[in-house]
């Protein structure tokens, strides 16, 4: 229990704005299904990024962990164990609710949802069926000025994982995941195409990552979704909906919705009816299949959990959650664009190691690529900085299959490197070489020292003209034929000599300075 309840009228009003009803959305004909309107609603389950599970002290786990190593007697449903609510899960659910513009309920409660399955050791899942932690939210999609209303957000337990080994006819159960905290985010049926559904999931992923609520990774199963799909004639009432369960990637979800839409239309156009069903999706055949009909729907026998007191969230807790909230993607995007970054650069920066900016339990993380960029661009041209970051730093890390979190180059090192290139004390090529050196050697030295150690100081006309002149003369001597051709007036061949100079200088020579000097040496004075 967190604290005593407060009067609901003290809740922040600014978290509510008037939202359009789906009926207000104008119908746009889709060439894939002319004369039909598609209606989609999504239920998203996101694993909360906490160190410990929702009701036990065992640590949460990742995919690669050895099976059944993150298990306490509570997780295995041992007799005599009792749940203990992890307040960090509540904090992250509150962040989710606030980020989705939802109304936080001053009093919510936990219920048991009963069914027998091998991945559910207690025989029930603790969820928030009757009184969820938040409701009435909204998510603004990235395209088309679409707002999807959020019906409710609830805290619940994840299940264990069961895998079937057909060779030995054995079911194997891994309890590592059992009892991990989830938020279930239920949307209204406000989406009108598979693409909008895809946009919704991607936008939601970005929001969950930015506030540190979840890694939101569909491939690793930290974000999973179910889709409700129906079709109707424009202006007509909604059609019968079918639910497609366990969609594991945005791409497959969009394919599944498309298949389901086409199935409904085919049924309706041949005079048949769509029956309310729960369906699965076969990724290989690209089709949905029936899991159970409405008549077979299980009775979950929801019961208020007699062990868990109601969850009371007062204004002080909400204020604390608001104050500790990291910046939301929308706000971050517009802030970056206002610094003159292109939309593409902004997206690249924001997508780097997404979800790793915030630590476990919502703790501030290293700050990620955006924070790095912002420290780096203090007193420097943001466009030049973003180029160095996206093209060179991220490029070289990527070539080594390293993530941004593994970046060994400090903001100070990177800043000096950019400054040295900018003021001509090293060439761009040397800058890249230097960066490569720093990354491969995990060097903590400042670039100025490294440049001196590695003799990378630029050979320009002014500073070390003698050595540049020497290199040019050596190049002329080494390539007499080409030099002759240049002397006869074919200036294009000079590039071969420049290339030789650059190579011999190991990138320290400034290409333009070398070209000018070679011309000076080979061509008659004008």
């Amino acid at each position, binding site marked *: 229990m967190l604290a005593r309840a407060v009067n609901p009228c003290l809740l922040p009003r600014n978290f509510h704005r008037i939202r359009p009803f789906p009926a207000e959305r104008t119908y746009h004909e889709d060439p894939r299904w002319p004369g039909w309107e598609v209606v989609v609603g999504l239920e998203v389950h996101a694993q909360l990024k906490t160190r410990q599970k929702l009701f036990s002290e065992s640590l949460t786990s990742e995919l690669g962990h050895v099976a059944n190593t993150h298990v306490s*007697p509570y997780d295995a*449903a*041992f007799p*005599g164990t*009792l749940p203990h609510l992890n307040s960090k899960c509540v904090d992250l659910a509150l962040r989710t609710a606030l980020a989705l513009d939802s109304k936080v309920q001053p009093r919510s409660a936990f219920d048991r949802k009963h069914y*027998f399955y091998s991945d559910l050791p207690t*025989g029930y899942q603790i969820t928030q069926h009757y009184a969820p932690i938040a409701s009435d939210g909204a998510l603004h999609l990235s395209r088309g000025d679409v707002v999807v209303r959020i019906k409710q957000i609830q805290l619940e337990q994840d299940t264990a994982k069961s895998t079937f080994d057909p060779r030995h006819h054995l079911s194997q159960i891994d309890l590592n995941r059992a009892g991990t905290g989830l938020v279930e985010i239920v949307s209204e049926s406000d989406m009108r195409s598979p693409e909008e559904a895809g946009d919704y999931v991607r936008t939601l992923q970005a929001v969950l990552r930015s506030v540190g609520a979840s890694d939101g990774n569909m491939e690793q199963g930290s974000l999973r979704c179910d889709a409700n799909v129906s079709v109707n004639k424009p202006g007509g009432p909604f059609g019968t909906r079918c639910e497609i369960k366990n969609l594991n990637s945005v791409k497959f979800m969009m394919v599944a919705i498309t298949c389901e839409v086409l199935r409904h239309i085919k049924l309706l156009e041949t005079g048949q009816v769509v029956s309310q069903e729960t369906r699965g999706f076969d990724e290989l055949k690209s089709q949905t299949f029936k899991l159970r009909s409405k008549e077979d729907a299980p009775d979950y026998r*929801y019961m208020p959990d007699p*062990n868990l*007191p109601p969850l009371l969230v007062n204004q002080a807790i909400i204020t604390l959650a608001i104050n500790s909230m990291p910046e939301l993607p929308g706000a971050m995007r517009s802030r970056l664009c206002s610094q003159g970054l292109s939309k593409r650069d902004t997206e690249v920066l924001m997508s780097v190691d997404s979800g790793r900016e915030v630590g476990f339990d919502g703790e501030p993380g290293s700050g990620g690529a955006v924070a790095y960029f912002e420290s780096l661009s203090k007193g420097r041209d943001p466009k030049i900085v973003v180029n160095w970051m996206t093209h060179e730093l991220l490029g070289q890390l990527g070539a080594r299959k390293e993530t941004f979190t593994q970046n060994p180059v400090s903001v100070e090192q990177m800043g000096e490197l950019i400054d040295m290139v900018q003021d001509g004390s090293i060439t761009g090529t040397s800058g890249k070489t230097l960066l490569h050196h720093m990354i491969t050697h995990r060097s903590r030295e400042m670039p100025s020292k490294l440049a001196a150690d590695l003799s990378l100081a630029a050979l320009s006309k002014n500073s070390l003209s003698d050595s540049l002149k020497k290199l040019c003369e050596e190049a002329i001597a080494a390539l007499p034929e080409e030099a002759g051709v240049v002397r006869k007036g074919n200036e294009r061949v000079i590039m071969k000599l420049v290339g030789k100079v650059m190579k011999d200088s190991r990138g320290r020579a400034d290409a333009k300075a070398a070209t000018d000097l070679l011309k000076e040496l080979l061509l008659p004075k004008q």
Partner: protein
Amino acid sequence: MRSAPRNIRFCLHLRYNSTVSYWRDVIDVKNASVNAIVHTAGLHPGTGHGPLKDLAIAVKDNICTASMPTTCSSAMLKDFTSPFNATVVDLLQDAGAQIIGKTNCDEFGMGSLNTHSVYGPVVNPYSTPSDSAPWVERERRSAGGSSGGSAAAVAEGMCDAALATDTGGSTRLPASYCGVVGLKPSYGLISRWGVVSFADSLDCVGIMANDVATTKRVFNVASTYDPKDPTAATLETRHKSQLTPMPLVEKNLQGLRIGIPQEYFPAELDRSIIRSFRLIVSALKDNGASIIPVSLPSTSYALSAYYVIASAEVSSNLARYDGIQYGLRVDTPHGADKTKTSNIYAHTRSQGFGREVQKRILLGTYALTADAFDNYFLQAQRVRKLVREDFDHVFRAPNVLMNHSSNFTSSSQTSNSNIDVLLHPSAIRTAPLLPLSSPDSSSILSSSSGLDAYFQDVLTVPASLAGLPALSVPVCSGVDGWPVGVSVVGQWGCDDLVLRVGEIVEQL
């Protein structure tokens, strides 16, 4: 007034150098006829210091112990040993108590006669004053349930005190039948971590002993806040309940207001019980206490509401016994339908659970189905609220679990009784005879209608629904010579007052 002499104590030879081996020998000799102890502790010396260092305590077999099995008297957990100790067991051991064994009970705490046990029934060890016949020839009476083993172990001198549990009367009823003291404390005072859940919202750890003083000593150690129990009363709430001014109960009972609830004398109540009860009431009056008749009008609905709520929680709490993680596993027979997980579990659950448990799981499952939920489960919750309000209306002390404004209304405005404690018979009769046939088959009490056995709990269930402290104290024998218990019930958190009044009753 307590006339029944104790059993003749087992003749002790003081040559034992270890108290553990002493108690092992006592159990060896006495338990065969009573069947109260189902596991005996190994020879681990206790800490030897602490406030309970002189006490040997038996623990009901639905309370987890890491050094002995915890079977809940069920085939389902026949070979189960918990990886941890219940908090209450740790507390007692840390206070120097010697845990000497685990006691028989009704399966998972479900039953009123301790006949629904995989170990067979507990035989009430009481011997009436006139009874000099050897054990085998005596009438075999029930020790009561579900904590029959704990009550019988105390009554027969196999321990100084015993931990029990009480969901709807499981401590008070056997205490009454066996002639010992049984306390069900306020809900939330003793940690339930490690207590195998029957119905979480009602389950309490109970304490049994031969006298109130010993009961109180054990309670004082056990009643400690434990963050591992999410339903534990917080330190703040505990403190608040101590602030309520209590009447000073001295030898002269002037100022003590005792309520007699008129609804607690149903037609089924045995006449001889009423007679014994009247003697106590007039003795209290003679000592200066005010005796006030009060009404708790929702009492008649309490039993039905209790069975709906308890069964619903049972169906949920016992879903975990599926043969996968621990406990009994019955493999699916060759060719069995394995298309659904529940079909595979069914074999284990059908064999592992006894009839009474199965019956309650089915009842509870029904009560929670979408169609029945409103009419059964929610209706029962409404009744529960009314029962709680009934109590709040008659007690002088406010209910600290409610918020301040409603306290004020209930205790100062609508209350016309202002009583300190309620007093009523603990059971409708003395210990009933055990069925002659094998355990867990249709007994005399359950064969006729199936509801007779449930009716045993009619007087104990209301305090469970309201989470109130209730203490059964043996007072005198009924006409048949068997013990009769009287219950003292107080407002939530007034456990000390209840124990104090219990001590007075004990000394009358």
